[in-house]
Protein backbone atom coordinates (compact mmCIF):
# COMPACT_ATOMS: atom_id res chain seq x y z
CA UNK A 1 0.00 0.00 0.00
CA UNK A 2 1.34 3.42 -0.90
CA UNK A 3 2.30 5.72 1.93
CA UNK A 4 -0.16 8.48 2.59
CA UNK A 5 0.64 11.79 1.09
CA UNK A 6 0.62 14.39 3.86
CA UNK A 7 -2.22 16.84 3.61
CA UNK A 8 -0.73 20.27 3.44
CA UNK A 9 -2.96 23.23 3.95
CA UNK A 10 -2.65 24.98 0.65
CA UNK A 11 -1.92 28.59 1.46
CA UNK A 12 -4.36 30.88 -0.22
CA UNK A 13 -1.59 33.08 -1.47
CA UNK A 14 0.02 30.29 -3.51
CA UNK A 15 -2.57 30.82 -6.17
CA UNK A 16 -1.60 34.48 -6.22
CA UNK A 17 2.07 33.74 -6.91
CA UNK A 18 3.44 34.31 -10.36
CA UNK A 19 3.57 31.24 -12.54
CA UNK A 20 7.37 31.21 -12.68
CA UNK A 21 7.64 31.04 -8.90
CA UNK A 22 5.09 28.28 -8.69
CA UNK A 23 6.93 26.27 -11.32
CA UNK A 24 10.30 26.88 -9.70
CA UNK A 25 9.16 25.67 -6.30
CA UNK A 26 7.14 22.78 -7.72
CA UNK A 27 10.06 21.58 -9.83
CA UNK A 28 12.47 21.82 -6.91
CA UNK A 29 10.12 19.97 -4.58
CA UNK A 30 9.43 17.27 -7.16
CA UNK A 31 13.15 16.83 -7.65
CA UNK A 32 13.72 16.46 -3.91
CA UNK A 33 10.85 13.99 -3.71
CA UNK A 34 12.68 11.74 -6.15
CA UNK A 35 16.04 12.20 -4.43
CA UNK A 36 14.64 11.26 -1.04
CA UNK A 37 13.70 7.87 -2.48
CA UNK A 38 17.37 7.32 -3.18
CA UNK A 39 17.97 8.08 0.48
CA UNK A 40 15.56 5.27 1.36
CA UNK A 41 17.51 2.94 -0.89
CA UNK A 42 20.75 4.03 0.77
CA UNK A 43 19.41 3.28 4.23
CA UNK A 44 18.48 -0.25 3.21
CA UNK A 45 22.21 -0.68 2.54
CA UNK A 46 23.18 1.00 5.80
CA UNK A 47 20.74 -1.07 7.82
CA UNK A 48 22.11 -4.27 6.35
CA UNK A 49 25.66 -3.08 6.97
CA UNK A 50 24.89 -2.37 10.62
CA UNK A 51 23.27 -5.77 11.02
CA UNK A 52 26.28 -7.45 9.46
CA UNK A 53 28.50 -5.48 11.82
CA UNK A 54 26.33 -6.68 14.72
CA UNK A 55 25.95 -3.08 15.82
CA UNK A 56 24.03 -2.00 18.89
CA UNK A 57 20.38 -2.72 18.29
CA UNK A 58 19.37 0.89 18.92
CA UNK A 59 21.61 2.07 16.12
CA UNK A 60 20.24 -0.60 13.80
CA UNK A 61 16.74 0.47 14.78
CA UNK A 62 17.47 4.09 13.86
CA UNK A 63 18.77 3.01 10.46
CA UNK A 64 15.78 0.78 9.79
CA UNK A 65 13.41 3.60 10.69
CA UNK A 66 15.35 5.91 8.42
CA UNK A 67 14.15 3.94 5.40
CA UNK A 68 10.58 4.87 6.22
CA UNK A 69 11.58 8.40 7.14
CA UNK A 70 13.04 8.94 3.70
CA UNK A 71 9.88 7.62 2.08
CA UNK A 72 7.94 10.10 4.22
CA UNK A 73 10.24 12.91 3.09
CA UNK A 74 9.56 11.98 -0.49
CA UNK A 75 5.84 12.22 0.22
CA UNK A 76 6.24 15.59 1.94
CA UNK A 77 8.08 17.05 -1.02
CA UNK A 78 5.61 15.53 -3.45
CA UNK A 79 2.75 17.18 -1.56
CA UNK A 80 4.58 20.50 -1.73
CA UNK A 81 5.23 20.05 -5.43
CA UNK A 82 1.57 19.38 -6.03
CA UNK A 83 0.52 22.33 -3.90
CA UNK A 84 2.62 24.71 -5.96
CA UNK A 85 2.33 23.10 -9.38
CA UNK A 86 0.10 24.38 -12.08
CA UNK A 87 -0.06 20.96 -13.66
CA UNK A 88 -0.02 17.31 -12.59
CA UNK A 89 3.06 16.06 -10.74
CA UNK A 90 3.52 12.29 -10.99
CA UNK A 91 4.79 10.38 -7.97
CA UNK A 92 8.38 9.18 -8.36
CA UNK A 93 9.24 5.50 -8.19
CA UNK A 94 12.15 4.03 -6.24
CA UNK A 95 15.21 2.95 -8.16
CA UNK A 96 18.29 0.97 -7.17
CA UNK A 97 21.33 3.05 -6.33
CA UNK A 98 25.00 2.44 -6.90
CA UNK A 99 26.79 2.02 -3.59
CA UNK A 100 30.30 3.43 -3.12
CA UNK A 101 33.01 0.79 -3.07
CA UNK A 102 36.33 1.09 -1.25
CA UNK A 103 38.91 -1.02 -3.08
CA UNK A 104 41.15 -3.24 -1.02
CA UNK A 105 39.10 -2.87 2.15
CA UNK A 106 37.73 -5.88 4.05
CA UNK A 107 34.02 -6.61 4.12
CA UNK A 108 33.58 -5.18 7.59
CA UNK A 109 35.72 -2.22 6.64
CA UNK A 110 33.43 -1.58 3.67
CA UNK A 111 30.45 -1.62 6.01
CA UNK A 112 32.07 0.78 8.43
CA UNK A 113 32.97 3.20 5.64
CA UNK A 114 29.46 2.95 4.25
CA UNK A 115 27.95 3.94 7.59
CA UNK A 116 30.44 6.75 8.00
CA UNK A 117 30.08 8.00 4.43
CA UNK A 118 26.31 7.98 4.33
CA UNK A 119 25.54 9.10 7.88
CA UNK A 120 28.47 10.98 9.42
CA UNK A 121 29.31 12.79 6.19
CA UNK A 122 26.34 12.90 3.84
CA UNK A 123 23.49 13.22 6.32
CA UNK A 124 25.40 15.77 8.39
CA UNK A 125 25.91 17.84 5.25
CA UNK A 126 22.21 17.42 4.46
CA UNK A 127 21.35 18.90 7.86
CA UNK A 128 23.30 22.01 6.99
CA UNK A 129 21.48 22.29 3.68
CA UNK A 130 18.11 21.96 5.39
CA UNK A 131 19.10 24.47 8.04
CA UNK A 132 19.79 26.93 5.24
CA UNK A 133 16.46 26.19 3.55
CA UNK A 134 14.56 26.53 6.80
CA UNK A 135 16.26 29.75 7.76
CA UNK A 136 15.00 31.53 4.69
CA UNK A 137 11.60 29.90 4.35
CA UNK A 138 8.54 31.88 5.36
CA UNK A 139 5.75 29.92 3.69
CA UNK A 140 4.11 27.93 6.48
CA UNK A 141 3.63 24.60 4.67
CA UNK A 142 7.22 24.71 3.45
CA UNK A 143 8.54 25.43 6.94
CA UNK A 144 6.48 22.59 8.38
CA UNK A 145 7.78 20.17 5.81
CA UNK A 146 11.40 21.26 6.18
CA UNK A 147 11.27 21.02 9.96
CA UNK A 148 10.05 17.43 9.75
CA UNK A 149 12.75 16.50 7.26
CA UNK A 150 15.47 18.24 9.28
CA UNK A 151 14.56 16.59 12.55
CA UNK A 152 14.77 13.20 10.86
CA UNK A 153 18.03 13.95 9.07
CA UNK A 154 19.62 14.92 12.39
CA UNK A 155 18.79 11.47 13.69
CA UNK A 156 20.10 9.89 10.52
CA UNK A 157 23.40 11.73 10.86
CA UNK A 158 23.66 10.56 14.46
CA UNK A 159 23.63 6.95 13.28
CA UNK A 160 27.13 7.41 11.94
CA UNK A 161 28.40 9.32 14.93
CA UNK A 162 26.82 6.88 17.40
CA UNK A 163 28.50 3.98 15.65
CA UNK A 164 31.84 5.77 15.64
CA UNK A 165 31.45 6.34 19.36
CA UNK A 166 30.57 2.72 20.06
CA UNK A 167 32.97 0.13 21.53
CA UNK A 168 32.80 -1.67 18.18
CA UNK A 169 35.11 0.98 16.79
CA UNK A 170 38.67 0.65 18.00
CA UNK A 171 42.04 1.94 16.91
CA UNK A 172 42.16 -0.15 13.73
CA UNK A 173 38.75 1.08 12.64
CA UNK A 174 39.64 4.67 13.41
CA UNK A 175 42.80 4.35 11.35
CA UNK A 176 40.75 2.95 8.45
CA UNK A 177 38.36 5.89 8.62
CA UNK A 178 41.28 8.28 8.82
CA UNK A 179 42.90 6.72 5.74
CA UNK A 180 39.70 6.98 3.75
CA UNK A 181 38.38 10.27 5.07
CA UNK A 182 40.00 12.44 2.45
CA UNK A 183 38.89 10.39 -0.59
CA UNK A 184 35.42 9.99 0.88
CA UNK A 185 35.05 13.72 1.43
CA UNK A 186 36.43 14.43 -2.01
CA UNK A 187 34.00 12.02 -3.66
CA UNK A 188 31.04 13.34 -1.69
CA UNK A 189 31.97 16.94 -2.43
CA UNK A 190 32.21 16.16 -6.14
CA UNK A 191 28.79 14.63 -5.89
CA UNK A 192 27.45 17.80 -4.33
CA UNK A 193 29.02 19.88 -7.08
CA UNK A 194 27.51 17.64 -9.76
CA UNK A 195 24.15 17.84 -8.07
CA UNK A 196 24.26 21.60 -7.66
CA UNK A 197 25.18 22.00 -11.31
CA UNK A 198 21.79 20.57 -12.22
CA UNK A 199 19.84 23.07 -10.11
CA UNK A 200 17.77 25.63 -11.95
CA UNK A 201 19.15 29.15 -11.92
CA UNK A 202 17.64 31.47 -9.38
CA UNK A 203 16.23 31.15 -5.90
CA UNK A 204 12.96 31.34 -4.04
CA UNK A 205 14.28 31.64 -0.52
CA UNK A 206 10.94 32.28 1.10
CA UNK A 207 9.72 28.97 -0.29
CA UNK A 208 12.73 26.96 0.88
CA UNK A 209 14.69 27.12 -2.37
CA UNK A 210 18.03 28.88 -1.86
CA UNK A 211 20.44 29.51 -4.71
CA UNK A 212 23.10 27.02 -5.77
CA UNK A 213 25.77 29.45 -4.54
CA UNK A 214 24.20 29.62 -1.09
CA UNK A 215 23.91 25.84 -0.97
CA UNK A 216 27.56 25.47 -1.91
CA UNK A 217 28.52 27.90 0.83
CA UNK A 218 26.46 25.97 3.38
CA UNK A 219 27.98 22.70 2.23
CA UNK A 220 31.49 24.06 2.63
CA UNK A 221 30.61 25.38 6.07
CA UNK A 222 29.20 22.00 7.06
CA UNK A 223 32.50 20.33 6.24
CA UNK A 224 34.47 22.97 8.12
CA UNK A 225 32.21 23.34 11.16
CA UNK A 226 30.52 19.98 11.53
CA UNK A 227 32.04 17.08 9.64
CA UNK A 228 35.77 17.60 10.14
CA UNK A 229 35.47 18.65 13.80
CA UNK A 230 33.11 15.73 14.29
CA UNK A 231 35.67 13.22 13.15
CA UNK A 232 38.29 14.88 15.33
CA UNK A 233 35.89 14.62 18.27
CA UNK A 234 35.50 10.92 17.46
CA UNK A 235 39.24 10.39 17.79
CA UNK A 236 39.85 10.17 14.05
CA UNK A 237 43.06 11.67 12.69
CA UNK A 238 41.80 14.31 10.27
CA UNK A 239 45.11 15.86 9.29
CA UNK A 240 45.06 14.44 5.78
CA UNK A 241 41.47 15.44 5.13
CA UNK A 242 42.05 18.83 6.68
CA UNK A 243 45.00 19.34 4.37
CA UNK A 244 42.78 18.67 1.39
CA UNK A 245 40.15 21.06 2.68
CA UNK A 246 42.57 23.86 3.49
CA UNK A 247 44.54 23.51 0.29
CA UNK A 248 41.55 24.35 -1.84
CA UNK A 249 40.36 20.83 -2.52
CA UNK A 250 36.80 22.12 -2.66
CA UNK A 251 37.62 23.95 -5.85
CA UNK A 252 37.57 20.68 -7.79
Amino acid at each position, binding site marked *: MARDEPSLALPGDVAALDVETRRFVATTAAR*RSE*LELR*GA*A*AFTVITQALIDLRA*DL*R*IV*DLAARAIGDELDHSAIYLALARAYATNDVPAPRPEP*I*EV*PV*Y*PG*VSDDGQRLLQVV*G*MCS*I*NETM*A*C*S*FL*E*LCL*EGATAAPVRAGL*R*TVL*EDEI*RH*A*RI*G*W*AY*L*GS*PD*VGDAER*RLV*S*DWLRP*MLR*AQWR*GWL*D*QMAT*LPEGERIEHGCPSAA*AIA*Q*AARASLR*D*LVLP*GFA*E*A*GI*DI*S*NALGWFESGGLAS
Partner: protein
Amino acid sequence: MPSSASRSKLFHTIVVVGLSSASAACGPKEATVARATDAGKDSASADAADDDASDATPVTFGASDAADEPVVGIGNNAPDAAIPCVRDASPSCWPIYV
Protein backbone atom coordinates in the same frame (compact mmCIF):
# COMPACT_ATOMS: atom_id res chain seq x y z
CA MET B 1 23.52 31.93 6.18
CA PRO B 2 22.99 30.33 9.56
CA SER B 3 25.03 31.99 12.31
CA SER B 4 28.08 30.47 13.92
CA ALA B 5 26.08 30.08 17.11
CA SER B 6 23.47 28.13 15.21
CA ARG B 7 26.18 25.99 13.65
CA SER B 8 27.68 25.34 17.04
CA LYS B 9 24.32 24.18 18.32
CA LEU B 10 23.93 21.93 15.32
CA PHE B 11 27.35 20.41 15.96
CA HIS B 12 26.36 19.59 19.51
CA THR B 13 22.97 18.29 18.46
CA ILE B 14 24.33 15.98 15.80
CA VAL B 15 27.87 15.05 16.68
CA VAL B 16 28.26 15.36 20.43
CA VAL B 17 24.93 13.79 21.23
CA GLY B 18 25.41 11.16 18.57
CA LEU B 19 28.88 10.18 19.75
CA SER B 20 28.05 10.05 23.40
CA SER B 21 24.73 8.35 23.65
CA ALA B 22 22.58 6.05 21.61
CA SER B 23 19.65 6.66 23.93
CA ALA B 24 19.84 10.37 23.20
CA ALA B 25 20.04 9.56 19.53
CA CYS B 26 16.75 7.76 19.97
CA GLY B 27 15.32 10.64 21.99
CA PRO B 28 12.20 12.65 21.47
CA LYS B 29 11.81 14.25 18.09
CA GLU B 30 10.48 17.43 19.63
CA ALA B 31 13.71 18.09 21.47
CA THR B 32 15.72 17.27 18.40
CA VAL B 33 13.97 19.68 16.14
CA ALA B 34 13.76 22.41 18.72
CA ARG B 35 17.48 22.32 19.22
CA ALA B 36 18.20 22.24 15.55
CA THR B 37 15.89 24.94 14.40
CA ASP B 38 15.80 27.31 17.33
CA ALA B 39 19.52 27.42 17.85
CA GLY B 40 20.75 30.95 17.80
CA LYS B 41 17.27 32.37 17.51
CA ASP B 42 15.62 31.57 20.76
CA SER B 43 18.21 30.78 23.38
CA ALA B 44 15.59 29.98 25.97
CA SER B 45 13.98 27.23 23.98
CA ALA B 46 17.31 25.96 22.75
CA ASP B 47 18.64 25.79 26.26
CA ALA B 48 15.48 24.05 27.39
CA ALA B 49 16.00 21.52 24.66
CA ASP B 50 19.58 21.08 25.78
CA ASP B 51 18.28 20.39 29.24
CA ASP B 52 15.96 17.79 27.83
CA ALA B 53 18.86 16.05 26.22
CA SER B 54 21.04 16.20 29.29
CA ASP B 55 18.22 14.85 31.41
CA ALA B 56 18.08 11.73 29.32
CA THR B 57 19.98 8.80 30.72
CA PRO B 58 22.71 8.29 28.19
CA VAL B 59 24.16 4.92 27.44
CA THR B 60 27.72 5.74 26.61
CA PHE B 61 29.62 3.96 23.92
CA GLY B 62 33.08 4.79 25.14
CA ALA B 63 33.35 8.00 23.19
CA SER B 64 35.25 9.78 25.90
CA ASP B 65 37.79 6.98 26.08
CA ALA B 66 38.13 6.97 22.34
CA ALA B 67 38.77 10.68 22.21
CA ASP B 68 41.55 10.40 24.73
CA GLU B 69 43.36 7.58 23.02
CA PRO B 70 46.26 8.47 20.78
CA VAL B 71 45.50 7.65 17.22
CA VAL B 72 48.30 6.46 15.02
CA GLY B 73 48.07 8.37 11.78
CA ILE B 74 48.73 6.36 8.68
CA GLY B 75 49.47 8.20 5.50
CA ASN B 76 48.88 11.57 7.03
CA ASN B 77 51.63 13.11 4.99
CA ALA B 78 51.51 10.70 2.11
CA PRO B 79 51.33 12.11 -1.39
CA ASP B 80 48.01 11.91 -3.18
CA ALA B 81 49.10 8.91 -5.19
CA ALA B 82 49.40 6.85 -2.04
CA ILE B 83 45.97 7.77 -0.78
CA PRO B 84 43.30 5.22 -1.53
CA CYS B 85 40.88 6.55 -4.10
CA VAL B 86 37.18 6.03 -4.03
CA ARG B 87 36.08 4.72 -7.37
CA ASP B 88 35.63 7.55 -9.83
CA ALA B 89 32.73 5.88 -11.61
CA SER B 90 29.69 8.07 -11.28
CA PRO B 91 28.06 8.12 -8.85
CA SER B 92 30.86 7.56 -6.39
CA CYS B 93 29.00 9.14 -3.55
CA TRP B 94 25.86 8.66 -1.54
CA PRO B 95 22.58 10.15 -2.71
CA ILE B 96 22.42 13.91 -2.27
CA TYR B 97 19.05 15.51 -1.63
CA VAL B 98 19.78 18.98 -3.01
